[in-house]
Structure formats: C-alpha cells, structure tokens
C-alpha cells in the first residue's frame, strides 16, 4: 500500500513528504503535495489510498475515545481544578473567616483564643459606632450604584443607538480604560485630584468654589470611577440588543422621549442594571483602600476591618461577615426580580 514514486536524479527526496502512515493519508493535502512535487516528465505509478476502516490510533486518539464514551469522567476532568480552587481555597477561607468570627482575643497579649463566643457580633450590633459604619458603607455602596446607573443610561443610549461605529469603539475603550490601570495608581490619582489646593480646587477656584476635599463625597466619586465599567458595559450591550424599532414604535404611539425611556428602555434594561449593580454594590461594600486615601475621616466596614485585623482578628472577621450578609440579601432581592435568569 505504500505509494511508489519514481525519483528523478537531482530531485530532492520528496518522498519525505509522501504519506507514510494511514493517518497521514487521510489528510488530503499530503497526497496533493506529493502530486505537485512529482516532476511532470516522470512516469509515476501511485496507489491512491482509499481505506476508510477504523484508524490505528495514537495514544491521544485512545484517550479521546475513552473520554468520548464516558461523559462523567470527562466532566470530572474538566472541573477538577476549578472545584479544588472553589472548594479548598475559596470556600475554605470563607469557612475559616466564619469560624474565627466566634473566637476571641486575649486583651493583653492580643492572642487569638479559639473559644466559642457571640461577643463580637453583640459588639457590632450594639456599638453605635459600628452600626453607623455599617449603614454608612451600605449608603455609600448604594450611592455609587445609583450614580453609575444614572451615568450608564444616557451613555449606553448614545453608544448603542446614536454613535458611529468609530465613536462607539472610542467610547468603549474610554469606558474600560479604568480597568487597565492598577488599582492603587487610580486611587492615588484621585487623592491628588481631591487634595487641598489640588487640580479640582484649582479648576473650581474661578467659580468661587472648591473641591469637596477628602471625605464621603470624594469616596463616592472615586468608587464610581473605579466600578463604573462594570455597570456601563452590561447596560451598553443590553441597549444594543433592543431593536431600534421599539423606540420608533413607542414614539409612533405617542410617547415623547422621556416616556419612551421610562416605559420601554428602563424596563428592558432592568436585568442589565441589576447585573451591573451587583458589581458596583458589592465592590464598593468591600473597598477600604479608596476610603483610606480619599475618605478622610470617613470610616467604612473595610477600614474598620483593616484597623482590627492585627489587634482583634475575631472582631474583624465578624465585621467581615456583615458585607457578606448584605450581599446575600441583595442577591436574593435581585433574584426575586427575575433579572438573574439570564445569567
């Protein structure tokens, strides 16, 4: 079955390219290549391989066949590493956090004592300072979310329905740009912007105003900048999926622009807003670096955890559970709206 080639003297040993095994012969380009390389003036007798029977398999083929007929083995192989990561590293550390929250520390040595107590939770729930911090953090996260959504709506509308493809690409880059730089770099640049006598003060000086300085406002603006892409991208892509005819139809039926936005666009974008808000809300809830650099005296859950992590780890752990519970409640509410069905 080996193809025979008549080699003209002086020609490269093109038989090297010729099919050498049945596997190769199935590759139709291989015989064609040899055919092309065959000198036209030589008489060539060749047998064109036609065998179609089962292949003599390599090891890779055998593995593929084995996996093909055993779906369970296949799925296990696929998910083994992700499951290890999820089970051991992710859930493991969460469990450890949860357990630590019920421990206590020796007030003199600051050593963690593994003994069950509800003391940490009682303190968080009863201490007015902790209550205020938790509520303030939730308020900041909500403000960031609302601000992001309010900015994403007109921007998404413009990008999806008005802008030229070129403008759209430019804006898409612009929106995702904050994701390209390091987190600390961005926080520091905002720290400079809000500094006393800094760029913002200088810019507002002609109007007789000054920037808000470090504090809650600066924190909300900085966090909105950080997490805006997570809101803008889903809202924009949802906008693109709304047929432009629906806006025409709404206007045709008598709706002015705002009525169309309110009754058609916003309801259809609800899943995108909720998906985006899960990011903006939970990421804002967990932040502490921005709070430290531009928050001034504003304390958030993150800064409280950061300041307790060495002195009183169990208290930090207990406080760390607060945002987890808040996010779980948030996800539960989001699920009730039906917005997560698309995920």
């Amino acid at each position: 079955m080996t193809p025979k080639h008549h080699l003209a003297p002086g020609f490269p040993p093109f038989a090297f390219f010729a099919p050498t095994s049945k596997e190769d012969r199935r590759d139709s380009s291989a015989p064609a290549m040899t055919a092309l390389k065959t000198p036209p003036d030589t008489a060539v007798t060749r047998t064109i391989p036609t065998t179609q029977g089962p292949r003599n398999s390599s090891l890779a083929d055998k593995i593929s066949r084995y996996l093909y007929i055993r779906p369970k083995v296949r799925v296990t192989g696929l998910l083994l590493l992700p499951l290890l990561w999820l089970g051991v590293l992710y859930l493991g550390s969460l469990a450890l956090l949860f357990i630590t929250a019920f421990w206590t520390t020796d007030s003199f040595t600051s050593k963690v004592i593994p003994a069950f107590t509800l003391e940490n939770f009682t303190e968080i729930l009863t201490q007015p300072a902790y209550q205020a911090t938790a509520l303030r953090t939730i308020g900041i996260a909500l403000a960031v979310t609302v601000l992001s959504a309010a900015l994403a709506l007109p921007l998404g509308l413009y990008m999806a329905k008005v802008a030229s493809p070129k403008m759209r690409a430019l804006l898409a880059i612009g929106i995702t740009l904050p994701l390209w730089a390091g987190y600390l770099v961005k926080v520091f640049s905002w720290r400079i912007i809000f500094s006393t006598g800094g760029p913002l003060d200088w810019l507002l000086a002609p109007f007789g105003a000054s920037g808000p300085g470090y504090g809650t406002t600066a924190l909300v603006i900085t966090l909105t900048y950080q997490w805006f892409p997570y809101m803008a991208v889903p809202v924009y892509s949802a906008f693109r999926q709304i047929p432009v005819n629906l806006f025409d139809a709404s206007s045709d039926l008598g709706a002015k622009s705002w009525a169309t936005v309110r009754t058609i666009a916003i309801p259809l974008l609800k899943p995108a807003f909720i998906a985006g808000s899960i990011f903006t809300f939970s990421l804002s809830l967990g932040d502490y670096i921005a709070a430290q650099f531009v928050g001034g005296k504003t304390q958030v859950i993150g800064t409280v955890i950061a300041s307790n992590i060495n002195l009183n780890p169990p208290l930090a752990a207990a406080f760390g559970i607060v945002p987890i519970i808040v996010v779980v409640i948030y996800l539960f509410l989001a699920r009730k709206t039906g917005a997560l069905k698309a995920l």
Partner: protein
Amino acid sequence: MPTTATKAKASAAPTHHHSTPAISLQQVGKSFGDFEAVKGLDLEIRKGEFFSLLGPSGSGKTTVLRMIAGFELPTAGRIELGGQDVTYAAPFERDVNTVFQDYALFPHLTVAQNVEYGLKLRKLPKAERTARVAEALEMIQLPKVARRLPSQLSGGQRQRIALARALVLRPQVLLLDEPLGALDKQLREQMQIELKAIQREVGITFVFVTHDQEEALTLSDRVAVFNEGKIDQVGSPSDLYERPSTRFVASFLGNTNLIDGELARQLTGSPALLSLRPEHIVVRPLDSIQESGTSAATAVIEEIVYTGPTTRFMTRTDHGTQLIVQEQNGATSSGATRGSTVRLEWPSRYNYTV
C-alpha cells in the same frame, strides 16, 4: 372629535376626490450623505383608500413611509397630513400610526398592555381604555391572548396585535411597512384578505409598503411603483398591469414580453419597445384562420414548462424574438408540442408601447 369625523367621511366615499387628500407629498427628497434615496417626489393619497408603495428593495418606498411617520425628516419638500403641514413634526405629534415589518411589539408588556400603550399616553380613563382594547382584540379575532406576552404568540398573531395596537388609536392614516413579509405564503394570503376586510370596516387610509407585486395588486385601490427613488407610475392595479407607462413598471409587475426590433416594427409600424403579457397570447395551429383585430407571429416552440394551472411555452418567432406564452390548462389547451411551429395570436390592443 376629529377622528370620528374623518372616519365617517372616509367610509362614506373612499373613491371620491376630496379637496384635501389624506397625505400630500410635494417635491419631497431625502438624501443620506451622497446617496439620494428619494428624489423630488410628488404624491397625493386620497382619504380612505388602500394605497400601496410598490418597488424593489432600495427604491425609496420605505424611506417615504418613514418620512410620513416622522422617523426620518425629508431633506427637501413638504409633507401634509389632512391639509396640515407636518414636514418637521415629531412622530408623536402626527395622527398616523405604523405597523412595523418585524411587528415591534414591546416584549416586556402583555398583549393587552401593548394595545393599551398609546391609549395610556393619551391619558384616557381606565374604563375607556379597557373597552377599546377589548374591542380592538375582538376586531382582529384574538380576544383570548390579552394576558400573554408577545413571545408566546405565533408570527401571524403578533402581526395582528401590531395591527390592533395601531388601529386602537383610530389614526387618520395607518402606515404598514411590509407587514406580511415575515409570514409564510398561506398565512400571508389569509392575512391579505383580513387586512382588506379590516380596512373596509374602519375606513382609515392605509398606506402599504411592499415589494410583492401580487400583494400590491390584490390589496390596493391604487399603487405607486417606485424605481430608484422616483415614482414611475401611479394608478389602479389594472392601469399598471395592462397599461404600464415604463419598461420598469411592465417588467416589475408580473411577467412580460418586451418586444423591440423587427417584430415591433411589423406589429406597430415603429421600432418602439412593446410590452405583451404572456397570458394574452394564444397558441394556434398554423393552418387556422387568424381572427380579425388580432396580431400574430409565426414561432417555434422551444420549451414547454408545466406549472399545474398553466403551461408556459418558450417560443422563438421567425424574427428571432423570444416570446413567452402562458396558457390556462383545461378546455382551451392547445396541446402544442415541443419543436412544432405554431401561430401566436393576440388582440392588437395588447400591443402596448412602453
């Protein structure tokens, strides 16, 4: 209420020539950059008529419809609705409603909410809204789907809901943008009949965009044939079909034989282009006697295509002109065979110069 007045007048006399047309386009033009989609168009659509804008894709018919609706603003000319200048009015200011090609039903609203949408914006009381929604759903024979979402309906049902949503507002003019394009043939034919019946019932002026010449001929009182941003001819279906004014109209509406050269000269004494419909020609034996008032040509049958109700003969006359003949199957079948030489005969009045 102006709508009831319009309605009564329109249903009373759809064919009468009122002094104010429902729609009047005066030298209307529309350019997209360098591309001139519509070129200086003049058109009057009468009250209560079923008017079709017919043409191939890209001929400007949809652009004209969108300018009447207000989705596009003309770059030249003037548009009047019922005598009022609406050239630059917003869609929500115009007393016209549109049925879109892909229906454009709001996917998050139920059928009833979709139909109610325009009534709500007009701030009608709840009781009247409910009554009118029910009435509209009754008219399209879908009273039972009110609580469903558009995604739970078939294409034909969605089409009717779109119609109900527009008609419930009782506009002066209803614009329909290829509304039957997405339906299969059988459903389309059924919807054509219903559409015509509904139009007669409500007496509203319908402006219907289509590229399907058969649909335009079936439904319309009058048709405007669009060709490259201009109207080639406006007329009743029989006007257009039997007396096409341009070569484009002749060939776009149905099949036709375009005859020029020697045969044309023989038939009419001038080499001007003739349009002759395949079904106007009869195949007769060579030795039969030619009837008076007819034109004739000797031809060889080159090919025979049987289509069920008709048979088509591809023939070549002794002048070398190819003529297609369409014959009803049945009692009048000529029984001509391929390769035979026959006489083609047709009433001379069908020799129509285009």
